[in-house]
């Protein structure tokens, strides 16, 4: 889980009477079926964001809970959202927040050892998970509504009284070591890490990946202390959605919190911003892989102070126009549709919590076609800087973004989590309420202005991971110089000595070396 990028995937939409008015079209005497769909007329999609105030409740220790009923299925989702993450890792203890979260779930409780906790959950067919990211962690319970009481009991037993059993800590460390060993098996994973380092530097909180040495420095006592310091009601926002009676579940939560030993102290907030300045250019990591992974992009904006900035919305439209939809976006049409250079391509932009988010175009490509794909991308980005986008493109991008807004609020369980995360990160609910109006205010001129700033070629970072540039293809002469980056040892993340690629063979055969 990561909350690095704040994305517009918003809260609950309530449509009033849109269907009823559409029936007007079927009037007598009108042609039964219009000759072209452009002749269809639709009522406006009227939707109201749910009011957070109606869902929000205050519990013991000042804990906020958002509760939403949804009786479609006999299920309940409960989440405990917490202002806990890698930003709280003490010096020399990188990975502590993540390891604590993992052992919270798998280390048993003082009452139930790990196996008995799993058995109890399994007997209820309940799912219980704990995730941890850079700025936020969460514990999630999903169970049948008939089992909610027992499920909540297990969730709070785990949160308040974890055992961090020594054998489970050792087993998790072994598992993580094994997982680290396969890190270089996937070109996409290599790209993700290297991209992070290029944009944020290796010291930033979001870039400090686990290594064998970092893992060895984490001990059971560290987990116990970290839990006691951070996993406290003072840092929680709780959400409940599903087949529940709000009054009952709130009373149950309150009594569980009452039994909690104290409310704890709030953690320091906000995390430090990033200080790294990325170096623009074309980088590559050479690994034998049938398909090359490619990313093009740059740092974006931090959330703080920018959520209402009109350019933010222009950037969203621009991102959508660039490669938001594989079949109708600029890059999708050209690289996949017309030139067959890539199978898939997408673009994303995000706003970071207290550090800049990023803008990224990402595709997977035959290594021999990387150069052509990069040149085509460059030409399309230049067109976005030099020419205004069409009215149709603008309207289509806005439709897609509005669909993202309503889709994100489609189910009550999405709504309550969105509001809870707003509270934790200190973001205003007003963002969602004003989203469509701010989006509609964006015109082609604003998009072009955003493109000139965001897509400045002097600031773009390009990274290719794959059998490249050994198989660079004929157009490689038109590219800027390639700066090779070393592959890292999967366990230490230290640079490995450069190794020649096995010729131009794209698929590693039986005799190819595996690092």
């Amino acid at each position, binding site marked *: 889980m990561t909350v690095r*990028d704040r994305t*517009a995937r918003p809260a609950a*939409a*309530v*449509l009033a009477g*849109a*269907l*009823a008015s*559409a*029936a007007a*079209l*079927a009037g007598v005497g009108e042609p*039964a*079926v219009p000759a072209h*769909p452009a002749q*269809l007329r*639709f009522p406006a999609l009227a*939707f109201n964001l749910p009011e957070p105030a109606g869902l929000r409740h205050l519990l013991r220790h000042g804990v906020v809970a958002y509760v939403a009923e*949804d009786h*479609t*299925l*006999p*299920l309940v989702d409960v989440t405990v959202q917490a202002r806990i993450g890698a930003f709280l890792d003490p010096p020399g203890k990188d990975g502590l927040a993540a390891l604590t979260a993992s052992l919270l779930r798998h280390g048993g409780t003082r009452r139930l050892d790990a196996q008995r906790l799993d058995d109890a959950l*399994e*007997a*209820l*067919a309940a799912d219980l998970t704990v995730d941890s990211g850079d700025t936020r962690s969460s514990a999630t319970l*999903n169970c*049948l509504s008939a089992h909610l009481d027992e499920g909540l009991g297990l969730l709070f037993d785990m949160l308040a009284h974890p055992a961090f059993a020594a054998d489970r800590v050792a087993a998790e460390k072994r598992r993580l070591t*094994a997982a680290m060993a396969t890190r270089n098996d996937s070109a996409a994973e290599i790209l993700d890490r290297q991209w992070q380092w290029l944009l944020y530097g290796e010291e930033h909180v979001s870039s400090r990946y686990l290594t064998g040495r970092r893992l060895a420095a984490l001990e059971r006592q560290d987990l116990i202390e970290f839990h006691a310091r951070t996993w406290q009601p003072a840092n929680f926002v709780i959400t409940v959605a599903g087949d529940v009676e709000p009054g009952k579940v709130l009373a149950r939560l309150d009594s569980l919190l009452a039994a909690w030993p104290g409310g704890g102290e709030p953690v320091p907030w906000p995390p430090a911003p990033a200080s790294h300045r990325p170096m623009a250019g074309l980088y590559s990591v050479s690994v034998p892989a*049938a*398909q090359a992974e490619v990313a093009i992009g740059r740092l974006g904006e931090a959330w703080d102070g920018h959520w209402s900035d009109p350019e933010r919305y222009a950037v969203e439209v621009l991102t*959508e126009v660039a490669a938001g*939809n*594989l*079949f109708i976006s600029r890059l999708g049409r050209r690289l996949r*549709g017309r030139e*067959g250079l890539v*199978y*898939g391509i*997408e*673009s*994303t932009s*995000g706003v970071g919590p207290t550090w800049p988010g990023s803008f990224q175009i990402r595709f997977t490509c035959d290594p021999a076609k990387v150069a052509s794909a990069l040149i085509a991308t460059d030409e399309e980005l230049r067109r976005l800087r030099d020419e205004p986008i069409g009215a*149709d493109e603008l309207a*289509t991008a806005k*439709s897609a*973004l*509005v*669909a*993202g807004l*309503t*889709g994100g*609020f489609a*189910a009550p369980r999405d709504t309550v989590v969105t509001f809870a995360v707003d509270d934790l990160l200190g973001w205003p609910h007003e963002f969602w309420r004003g989203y469509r109006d701010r989006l509609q205010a964006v015109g082609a001129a604003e998009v072009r202005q955003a493109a000139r700033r965001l897509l400045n070629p002097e600031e773009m970072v390009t990274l290719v991971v794959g059998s490249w540039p050994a198989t660079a293809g004929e157009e490689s002469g038109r590219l800027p110089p390639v700066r090779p980056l070393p592959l890292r040892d999967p366990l230490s993340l230290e640079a490995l000595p450069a190794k020649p690629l096995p010729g131009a063979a794209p698929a590693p*055969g*039986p*005799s*190819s070396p*595996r690092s």
Partner: protein
Amino acid sequence: MVKLSPRVRAALAPTLLPALALSLCLAPLGAGPAAAAAGGRPAACAGSSALHFGTQSFRLANGMTFLVVERPDPASVAAGWVASVGSADDPAGATGASHLLEHMMFKGTHTIGVQDPNELDVLYGRAGATSLNAFTKNDLTAYFVSVPANELELWFWLESDRLLAPVFRDLEGERKVIKQERQRDESTPRGRLQSQFNALFWQAQPYHAPIFGWPSDLAATSIADAEHHFHASYTAGNLTAVLVGHLDRARIEDLAHRYFDRLPAAPAPPRTPTAEPEQLAETRMNAAIDGPAELEIRYHSVPFRHPDSYALEVLAGLLNGPNGRLANALLAAERADQATAEQVSLRRAGFFSLTARARGDHGPEGLEQAWYGVLRRLQEEAVSPAELERVRNRLAADTFRRLREPLFLLVQLLTAAGLGDWHDLDEHTCRVAAVSAEDIRRVARAYFEPRNRTVGLYRAAGEPGKP
């Protein structure tokens, strides 16, 4: 804005699919009715729970069926249709035709796509529709999209138009896209060998050929072949449409008549009568792969809706999961880092599959022997009531979880309808709840004989110390 994975019009191999059909009938969890005799219908499922699930159906005069499911999301409708035709129905010499046809169905009509080959995407995109996609499986081809609720009529317009008069443009371009799609599919260590293993398993059934088709057939298939396949198999009687959302039933019926009554009346096409003959001897495949050793064992079992398919599904449930028997026998012993069992119920036949990936330098043989040990216990000892209840609870809860997203629900209804009976979605939980310990032992003995299996051993080619 973060995107979901890019849209991929996919050929789905059966083993990649979630359980084929699910249900919402609210059987008493963990306290299922007494075991029904094989072939019998448990009393709790009789008359069905269609009321609980809320699926309403109606049929047009031309034979096309509509299913409507009420869901509270006011902003969008998940809409789709399925043709009960898949790779198993591909004409001889044109394997892959169903999948190619699926791709060609996005190329427009006499009205759409004349100037812009992507006009279908453009029109849906401008309306704010999302998840426009389609997939081809062995027995069915399904097309779906999520449309804003106020623009649902656009779906009726565009989908009836492409069923009335599609125009297949840019065949060569799509051939290239399909080639890339196959390469991606084959990019896992075992991927390139999957077609061969699958062909080894099926002797006579048309499931024998890959969904993508044999490469030589794909290269040779013409526009005329695709048109012929379309007219022969996308007949009104072979189509089912599904709509999931906050819907007005009367208005849906009105739109269905206005737009889809235009399709000519025609029944579903006949299917090849070929049945899989009994397998008389074990078959084995020895392969070398790049990466840790893997194992796949397949047994011929039963098709969709066969009474034993539910017992086999529960049997797979006993094996899977963090506390399942495979975890205890293979994962805990550190022999494997991944092991999964699955009953795959297709229209004409079915199979039970076990796949496992070895840990470290372990070879596949040890995994194979460990699996036979797991199997022997299932054949000899009755499953305890507690273990059975745990698995049935888990299967029911997972069923509900998969029905939460309207698009997931849509895809499951399309799949069940495409396989021939959407009612399975209503009855599934009842059927699973009715499986007894004795049923488990009976199917474990009936379908897992050595001569009924095909074993694929994938040895790690790059292992140190090996040639």
